[in-house]
């Protein structure tokens, strides 16, 4: 999967939970889920669960703690898919 394909998939996953439409429109690897998209902590868990379903992977607490922005989400998904 290319980075662009991965970002497109992540964008679809986060879209129901975002609060800041403008930040969502300009979503990039540097977009922070909480600071930029204003996602709340419970919806961040929903995103993690949706990522697990979409990519058929299992995420742990340490992954959750690292998954603060698009870039780290991409890195974690890629690592899990490779493993």
């Amino acid at each position: 999967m290319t980075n662009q394909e991965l970002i497109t998939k992540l964008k679809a996953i986060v879209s129901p939970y975002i609060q800041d439409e403008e930040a969502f429109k300009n979503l990039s690897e540097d977009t922070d889920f909480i600071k930029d998209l204003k996602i709340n902590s419970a919806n961040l868990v929903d995103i993690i669960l949706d990522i697990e379903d979409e990519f058929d992977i299992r995420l742990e607490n340490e992954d959750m703690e690292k998954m603060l922005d698009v870039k780290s989400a991409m890195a974690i998904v890629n690592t899990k898919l490779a493993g």
Partner: protein
Amino acid sequence: MTVSEIIALLPYQKPFLFVDGIEAISDEGITGHYTFNKDETFYKGHFKDNPITPGVILTECMAQIGLVCLGIYLLKDELNSEHQPQIALTAHQMDFYLPVFPEEKVTVISEKEVFRFNKLKCKVQLLNEKGELVARGIISGMMKA
């Protein structure tokens, strides 16, 4: 963990405690009850000369029993004098079917849908004493020790 230990750990008190007892609890769900006293503070205003339990209070009762009591039970191994339960309601979707009047006893039945990364999401029902469905919905919150 006993029922009285769970209730003692609840962060509520009168007039905003809506838990009288728990009949059954497991890792998968909880059944508990509350009886609305005729002197509850909100009856004076909801409605004028026509006391009916507000939907938000029914939702609160369902959240206190269905989510918070269950959450305390699920966190039991992590709770101690230095780690009290920390809770926040994050979402609910609720449908209401029947009114609840003063002095009515209601039963809350909650089934755990997911408890991961401190988020607890439950499918919750509220029944009256006749066993009729009063309300049902989904409630989510964050729970940690």
